[in-house]
Structure formats: C-alpha cells, structure tokens
C-alpha cells in the first residue's frame, strides 16, 4: 500500500510498548485479519465512524443534523454505515463526544510535533516512540520518512509488526532507522494461520529468519512476541513449533502476551459483530497456570520468557 496512512491515535505515557516512557502512534489498516484482534478499529485502512453507547446522552442532535438519515435508534449499531457518507457533521455536533471519527490524515511534521512534546520524558526514562497499529509497514515509504525524522531528533524508535511485509523493502526503508522491532509470531501452522488471520504464514516466518540474521549480527533489537489466544494459539503443538523455530535460530528471548477480554466493547463501537466473543474462554482472563504451561514450552528450549 502506498500513500498517506490514517492515524488512529497518538498515545502518550505508554509504559508497555518498549523501554522507558513512550509515545505510541497507531496506524490504521492491517494486511492480517486476526479473529481475536484487540484493536478492531485498526483493521481497515479507510476512515470509519464510531459510536459509544455509554457516552451517549440520547439528545438526538446527531439524528437531526445527519443529511443522510443514517442515524436511528432502530439501527442495530445506531449508525447505518451503508448510508453514511462520512461527512462527520454528527461528530462535530455531538455534545457528549459519543460519536467519533476513526482515523485521520496527518503530515509527517504534525506527527513529529505531537511526539516531540514528550521528548523530555523519553530522555529521562530511556524511552522513545513506538509505531504500532494496525500495521505500520503497510505504508513503507511514509513510515521510512517518519522514522528518519525521529532519528534526526535523536529519538529511540521501535516498530511493532505482524511481519507480513516485503522483506527487502523493510531492510532498506525501515531497518536503518529503527532501534528495535517487536515482531509477532502467532500460529506455526500456515493453514491455521490462514484460517484465523486471513493469510498464510510463510512470508512472516521467512522475514523473521532474514531479519534475525541482520539483527543478531549487531543490528537493532528484534524481539519475537506470541499472543496467547485461548484454544487458538495457546496449545502445545503451536507454541512448541514456534519455540523450535526460535531455538533453531538461537533466539534467546520471547515475550508472551497473555489474553485478556478488555477489548470486547470495541467491536460494537465500530458496528461489527465478532462470533468469537460468544465463546466462554474469550470472555475470561487467561488462567495463570495456563500461562505458566505456555512459558514452560519456551524455557525448555532455553528461551527466556519476558
């Protein structure tokens, strides 16, 4: 994908997206379509509209201002997204900010300015900027220029990726301006990967292998991360496969991302239904013993679990 991405949010004071205090830029759009995606609003590259029932005071201002009659209490998610032309008149008028625009265009300079305000905190904490999403590598050229600008300001840069990208382009456009890469590996079996994430995993694993060589020889930090999704990724055959793959490359560390159900309300906000949410295991927090079992599969292979 070429051109200017939409930005979902620039979030300051993140303590969990890399070292130190960080500011995270969320890009909109992803080449994968993982069923369990915790940021469903980041899947599509195009602009969307969200409606938060909990913020709504029911004043009806939006219904009156909508030129298309797309808003009604009778609609399943309040907004008829087929009729909506994304003029955002309702967003501008909603007194309670229950309606919101999801994704906006920003120039490189606007993003850099927004992030630079937090730079003093990066400097005292060893933090920096994290590019996340969605999938930032969908916009290779744009992101390359952005990273370059951050490096010119002496800011530590980290990119979170699903690995589904053009490996050669990543090496020439992203790698030279990146201090760390958090790389998600989800399902070891390609068919399973296709079933749950929409695409096979060959490219993801071969890109990882290629990057590991560069990073291991003195390049940026490359940290594999594995989301533990109940009954989908958190079983022995999958994690054992990933652990063996990492072990064969002599990767020493992995980060496991235990499942939590905090994202459920996001799906209705953007007018989608996720059948996965009906499963009991998806409504619960992951069991502590289960997480330890998963971790053991990696430690057995001499991989430290972070």
């Amino acid at each position, binding site marked *: 994908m070429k051109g200017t991405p939409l930005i979902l949010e620039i*979030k*300051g*004071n*993140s*303590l*969990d*997206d890399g070292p*130190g*205090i960080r*500011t995270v830029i969320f890009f909109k759009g992803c080449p994968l379509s993982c069923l369990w995606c*915790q940021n469903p609003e980041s899947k599509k590259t195009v602009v969307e509209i969200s409606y938060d029932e*909990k913020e709504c*005071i029911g*004043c009806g*201002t939006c219904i009156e201002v909508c030129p298309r009659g797309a808003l009604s209490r009778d609609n399943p998610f309040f907004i008829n997204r087929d009729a909506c032309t994304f003029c955002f008149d309702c967003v501008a008028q909603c*007194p*309670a*900010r229950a309606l919101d625009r999801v994704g906006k265009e920003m120039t490189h300079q606007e993003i850099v300015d927004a992030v630079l*305000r*937090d730079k*003093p*905190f990066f*400097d*005292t*904490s060893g*933090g920096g900027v994290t590019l996340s999403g969605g999938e930032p590598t969908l916009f290779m050229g744009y992101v390359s220029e952005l990273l370059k600008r951050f490096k010119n300001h002496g800011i530590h840069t980290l990119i979170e990726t699903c690995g589904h990208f053009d490996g050669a382009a990543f090496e020439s456009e992203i790698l030279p301006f990146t201090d760390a890469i958090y790389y998600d590996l989800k399902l070891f079996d390609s068919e399973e990967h296709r079933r749950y994430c929409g695409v096979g995993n060959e490219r993801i694993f071969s890109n990882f292998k290629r990057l590991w060589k560069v990073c291991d020889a003195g390049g940026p930090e490359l940290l594999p991360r594995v989301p533990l999704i109940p009954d989908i990724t958190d079983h022995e055959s999958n994690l054992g496969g990933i652990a063996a793959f990492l072990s064969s490359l002599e990767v020493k560390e992995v980060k496991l*991302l*235990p499942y*939590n*159900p*905090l*994202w459920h*309300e996001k799906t209705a906000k953007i007018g989608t239904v996720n059948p996965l949410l009906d499963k009991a295991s998806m409504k619960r*927090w992951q069991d*502590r013993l289960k997480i330890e079992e998963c971790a053991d599969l990696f430690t057995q292979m001499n991989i430290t679990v972070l």
Partner: protein
Amino acid sequence: MTRGGARYNSSGAACIGLADVTDSLMVIKKLVYDEKRVSFTDLKKAIDGNFAGEPVLHAMVTKRVSLFGSGSEEALALAKRIMKFTHDSYWNYLNFRGGHYTAGFWSMSNHVAFGTLSGALPSGRLAGKAFTPGLTPEPHASKSLLDNIRDVSRLDPRHMNNNMAFNVKVVPAPQDGHERIVDNIYSYAKTYFDMGGMQMQFNVVTSEMLRDAMAHPESYRNLLVRISGYNAYFVTLNRDMQIELIERAEYGL
C-alpha cells in the same frame, strides 16, 4: 524578634481551584464567544439551576472544551494569566507588619470543604462537589499524564510565591516490580523539574482507589490500567472486569 522585628514579613494566601477557574473561563470563551454555541444568559441560567434539565449543555461544557492540563496552549496561557492576576492582586497589599501578601496554590483538603459551600461552575462542576486539589488539572483534561505534567511545569514559579501542590497518580501494573515503579516515578519527577516544575507529590494507585473509581468514575476518567501491553481506561470497563482487575491488583497477579 522583639527588637526591630523579622526580616521577612509576608503573609501567605492559599488559592483553591486554579483548574476550576481556568476551565470555567475557557468554557465561556469557547462556547459563548468563539463558537457561539450558547448565549451567556442561557449558560448563567443553567449554572444557577445546577445544570438540572440541561444534559446537553452540561455534556458540552465538560466534553467539548480544552482544559488546563490537556496540552492546550490556549488553556495554559489562560491559567498563567489568572495566576499572575491573583499574584499581583495579593502582592499589591501590605499586611500590618508591612510585608507583602503572597499567593499560593495548594489546598490541603480544603478543596473538598470549600466545594461544599459553592454553587455550580461554568466548567460543569456541580454545586457542592469538591474543587480540584491544589493546582492539579481536572482528571479528564487529558488521557496522557505527560500533558498534565508538562502544563503544570510551564506555570511561572514567581507567581506562586506561597508555593503550590500538584498531585500525580501513578498506576502500577500488577506485573511491575518495585524497581520499575520507582524508575517511572523518577522519570516523571526528573523531567518535571528539568522543565521548570516547582513541586509535585505522588499518589500510587492501590486496589482501594480502584474501588473508589468504581463508585466515583467521574473523578477517574483518565485512570489508565495496564494489562500486559494493553491499556484500558478503568472507568470504561464493565463491572465484572473492574472487579477482576481489583482482585488482580490485590494479589499481584
């Protein structure tokens, strides 16, 4: 003491509600004058009636105006103006010992007591509710604590010659060790003072506070809880999830 008196003879005042006053004036500036969404008369009427029967106007004043502590240059400039005005007003008077009056921006717990005596404000703060403590911004001014810290650091210390109090809430994640929590607090404090800050005090959020947040969500709008790389605003979670998080905080899971 008895011959010639003391060298410094100032008397100090403690002003309460810098954020409340700034945010109220921002509401009048933005909604009445700049955007003309409401007339001054209607706003005044709603305030006199404690916003009863005015849910739209109340939502508008609390959600559609940039507040002090949000990173808005306009709100910060207004806060600085109010602070200078307050300082100058006090300084121009002499006490019976011939010393100047100085202005401070701290409240101990008087922001709660004084709040019980005051009517509604243009900012949407309802009658009888507490004012903001010291010169701490409204909890919902920004989703990022860094905006709060940066704005407060940019106030002019010369106009706070009877000192100030700035509260900062730190929310450890269950998996954070002691060292991590201390490192984060160090970074906030060091950065704040590097940027020109004068005083700040930390409050580490406990499970008791999370319980309080369940009961009084309006005071905790920016309370961000962290769960292994995923951030969520505590008050937006449903009840079961909130209880789960409290239990996790208590058992360090």
